[in-house]
């Protein structure tokens, strides 16, 4: 019942905030985001699951109820958490609460609608990570788009309509492609499955029960079907991640989105893509993933290097962070394709780490923007002398992004590198890994350069007002994030242990590479 309580408390909170006068909405929304946060932390503390939810593991907080019958397929209400989804649920609740705080300053109209949508988003996100039935999952997956579309389209910057529509249409078309791919698989399984439950489908696919789509005479043979479905789902999820060359909606959406929406977009929404890749492509179709290992790894490496180069070229601080997300998510793909515990586990760890760090950077850029009303690096100089606390946090966050040891990002990258290096699935793994690792130099380059130009040097900013100290509700969330990032960097086993436990079954598949 815990997951239901989580989702319902979010949705109920959203409903209450919708009907609250704007004046009270911010504080009320913050208060209403605490119960889900506490519940998710309780879920973390009391977690008693083991193994992978799709592969016969012990599912925690599981609920199962019959929902409806769709032809030969039973569609059930089936939710539960394992070591992969629980950290992401906690990430969602933590980031939502913090982003609500960070919204107090910049959001000054239609507050009740804004905060209501944020809470609605939170509920949908938790649903995505908890659902274990495909159709139920798909409902949540699509439901996430609506609040985010509105958050960008209503409270965004000058080109908000363009960005919101681009975001919505791009990701929605991708969902369609993915949906077709997945249903082709279900039909290909024929009588082997009788429901749209993800565990049953995963077991059947891994057991090689995929048959012809259609009949053996006029139909798609299983091998072709599996590869085609893998590609369709990969493309569908790759847009969400996003992976080069499907990434161009991301910078536009980030630049136009208000800070709290950016935080949730980069922090959690992108993880939906990688989470789904792990749950669907890499758990259900390992053989196809191994077949396509080289092109996927190549895409990952290109995302890393190319994304970092793009970040280097940007003049808008928010665009820098946005493009760097493309780069960071490349590490996740590289870890997944490695098929090692360190690789897949590191990829999952990177999802959480990147969620925290990119959230931190977006929030900090937002705090600077609140004070200076500009995000262009060329317009700022010497901010550190006027806003020391914020600048310190930004420096900490930037070094976290660069992979400074004892911070979560370093651990995540190291896991991915170890996992990718020792991969037996990926040919020439050390070469791919070594090229990907060069990303850590470029990321240091653009962040240090951006900091040098915006934070340091003599203070120069054309304003007709004093830059005041940032208020406590601006500083508190970013400091909290720094603490979390360092905590995960010093004690990665806080979540890495359960992640490893849940990924073990994924990589154990015949070729189940190395250690």
């Amino acid at each position, binding site marked *: 019942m815990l997951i239901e309580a989580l989702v319902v408390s979010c949705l109920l909170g959203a409903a209450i905030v919708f009907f609250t006068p704007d004046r009270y909405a911010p504080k009320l929304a913050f208060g209403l985001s605490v119960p889900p946060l506490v519940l998710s932390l309780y879920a973390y503390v009391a977690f008693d699951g083991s193994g992978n939810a799709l592969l016969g593991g012990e599912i925690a907080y599981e609920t199962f109820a019959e929902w409806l019958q769709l032809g030969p397929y039973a569609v059930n209400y089936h939710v539960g958490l394992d070591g992969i989804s629980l950290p992401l649920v906690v990430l969602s609740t933590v980031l939502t609460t913090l982003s609500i705080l960070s919204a107090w300053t910049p959001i000054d109209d239609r507050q009740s609608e804004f905060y209501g949508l944020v809470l609605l988003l939170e509920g949908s996100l938790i649903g995505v990570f908890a659902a274990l039935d495909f159709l139920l999952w798909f409902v949540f997956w699509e439901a996430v788009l609506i609040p985010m579309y509105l958050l960008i389209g209503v409270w965004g910057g000058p080109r908000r309509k363009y960005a919101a529509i*681009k975001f919505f*249409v*791009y990701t929605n078309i991708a969902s369609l492609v993915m949906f077709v791919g997945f249903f082709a698989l279900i039909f290909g399984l024929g009588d082997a499955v009788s429901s749209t439950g993800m565990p049953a489908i995963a077991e059947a696919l891994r057991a090689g029960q995929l048959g012809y789509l259609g009949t053996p005479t006029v139909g798609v043979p299983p091998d072709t079907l599996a590869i085609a479905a893998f590609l369709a789902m990969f493309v569908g999820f790759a847009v969400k991640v996003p992976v*080069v*060359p499907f*990434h*161009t*909606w991301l910078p536009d959406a980030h630049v136009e989105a208000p800070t709290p929406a950016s935080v949730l977009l980069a922090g959690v929404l992108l993880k939906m893509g990688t989470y789904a890749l792990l749950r669907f492509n890499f758990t259900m179709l390992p053989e196809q993933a191994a077949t396509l290992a080289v092109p996927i790894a190549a895409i990952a490496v290109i995302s890393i290097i*190319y994304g970092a*180069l*793009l970040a*280097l*070229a*940007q003049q808008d601080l928010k665009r820098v962070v946005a493009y760097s997300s493309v780069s960071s998510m490349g590490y996740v793909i590289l870890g997944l394709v490695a098929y*090692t*515990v*360190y690789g897949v586990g590191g990829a999952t760890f990177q999802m959480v780490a990147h969620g925290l760090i990119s959230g931190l950077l977006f929030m900090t850029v937002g705090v600077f923007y609140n004070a200076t009303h500009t995000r262009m690096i060329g317009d700022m100089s*010497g901010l*550190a*002398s006027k806003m020391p606390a914020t600048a310190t946090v930004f420096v900490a966050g930037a*070094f976290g992004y*660069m992979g*400074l*040891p*004892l911070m979560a990002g*370093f*651990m995540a990258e*190291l*896991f991915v*590198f*170890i996992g990718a*290096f*020792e991969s037996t699935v990926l040919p020439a793994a*050390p070469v791919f*890994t*070594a090229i990907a*690792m*060069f990303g*850590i*130099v*470029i990321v*240091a*380059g*653009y962040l*240090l*350069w951006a*900091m*040098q130009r915006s934070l*340091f*040097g*003599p*203070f120069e900013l054309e304003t007709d007002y004093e830059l005041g100290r940032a208020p406590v509700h601006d500083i508190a969330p970013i400091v909290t994030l720094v603490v979390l990032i360092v905590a995960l960097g*010093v004690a*990665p*086993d806080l979540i*890495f*242990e359960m992640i*490893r436990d849940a990924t073990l079954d994924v990589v154990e598949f015949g070729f189940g590479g*190395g*250690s």
Partner: protein
Amino acid sequence: MALIYELTPAIVFLPLASFALALFFGRWMPKKGAVAGILATAGALGLSVVTLGWLLLSGEVHDQTWYTLVDAEMGVDLAFGILIDQLSAAMLVIVSLIAFLVHVFSLGYMNDEGEPGLPRYYAGLGLFTASMLAFVMADNLFMAFVFFELVGLCSYLLIGHWFTEDAPPSAAKKAFLVTRFGDYFFLVGVVGVLVTFGTAGFAGSEGFPALAESALAGETSVNTFGLSTEGWFSVLGLLVLGGVLGKSAQFPFHTWLPDAMEGPTPVSALIHAATMVAAGVYLVARMYGFYALLPTVLGIIAFVGGFTALFAATMAVVKNEIKQVLAYSTISQYGYMMLALGAGGYVAAFFHLTTHAIFKALLFLGAGSVIIAMHHEEDMWEMGGLKSEMRTTYLTFLAGSLALAGIFPFSGFWSKDEVLFETLVHALGGSPLLFGAYAMGITAVFLTGFYTIRMVMLTFHGDPRSETAEDPHSVGWNVKFPLSVLGVLAVVAGALNPVPIEMLTGAEVDFLHDYLYATPEALLTGAEHYSSLSSYGSGAIAGGEIGTMLVNAGLSFGLAVAGAGLAFGLYRGGSPARHTERLGRVQTLLMHNYYQDEYQVWLAEGFTVRLAAAADTFDQGVIDGTVNAVSSVSRSAGARIRQIQSGVVTNYAALVVLSLLALLVVFAILGGWF
């Protein structure tokens, strides 16, 4: 386990605590956090000395995992551990001593001068010290990398301390980026070692050097990714070496170090003498059991070291700022240490690391004292005649300079002589390639003597060449105390290991040698074990070992004196001429550091930034252009097709009827009605 080893982690945690205190409460603390820093480093120094003493008395070493980050049931564990053996115990004392003195000196350099941002400064110093100490006691390569990087972070923070000016943030960025470039290779190496051996431990039969040894002997096999065993190990060794070259400012990664002079002078002392730059060389010494297996890599290390020693020395000759001369001398001296390590002179390298830590810290603090006196003027041509006004500074600085120049009997002479001696002996023993490295090293001795004495002459001798030089600012006890301690040590530290005396008299005075050989065999990190691994033979000229020693000592002392004498002759007198300008185009070349900065800046700005801009254009034009093209094609197609919707109901009805008729015709044809 001895009680002292229970307390070893406190050596790291004391400075770490001073970091946290200064960062959060520094504003309200006495001397803005300086007192906490001094107490913490004094505590660390005390504990280090006790540790060293215990090790000397009992011979008991310590190697234990202290904290496990990732406890993998399968695959590699990632853990922090403490390894206290002869090497690390001695290094702990050096680092904490220098850190302590730098903290004291900072009272005079930063607090008394009323600098801003002191809590930040002391927080940085504390973290710097803590990271370096943790790096020194690391028992595995992963932990070493972690703190190696943190050392880099601290150097960034401290070099960029005066961030409201333009130059320091730029220099800090450069320092971090250049070392990061080296660390990239290091990280690939760490991952490679972890994956290859399943462990990154330095010591014992479970450590990776021991595993590598048995793999090379063919007793065990490891995954070598398609290369030969030695080939793959050499690749790993070279990858780790990338980090070493970056941090120890060896060619071609040396360019960050002279720029790093933008930081406060005590920080320069800390960086150059005991922390950041020393970290690279220390790492090679730490995993020498691995490098000793790989003759090719050793040869490369020796050559890079010898070349850097000479290369940096030539640039130091023409510099005009006192700190610039010292910066290039640091690069040059670390080149000697690399030369020694590469040439199989493990003890010599550590000996030179020790003496250099002392005299370079002394020289930087002395330069800091001069800079205080000169009201932050660093150009030596604005100085002159300071010796009468600044007695303590002059005497101690002179002691440090003579040590640096390698003049008998100052400490630098003994260690540099041993470095060159080891190189020569091993070159004669069948490794003729080392002659090249030796030749570069011995040439650099002459230049070292020249630029060191030139610096002393310009700074302290002659007539004052500016108004500030006539009436320098006085300095307090907190400046003179560290200088005096280091000054005495710079004179006597050679007594640690005066090998020539032992050879000539037979007296057992090579204390450091015996000390490093005393490491228990089980750890496999002792000098004795390393010498058994070494593939270098020994040779001699001029009638045996003593003859070789005398030839080498004579040569190095003679060249040092010649260089020093030349400088003394040229820059003597009230107002010396700018002799180096007579070098003409060579001088221009040297002043521009062989255009090393130019090409590296070109790589960063000319090449990478332009590549990034091109990528951005491509991204906006081609990739996003495609996305936008898809949407505009659908929109324009829609705009045309919607013309059908005229709004006139009659048209719709006509369309319905026509479509129906068309369908009927189609069905009729398909159904065969015609």
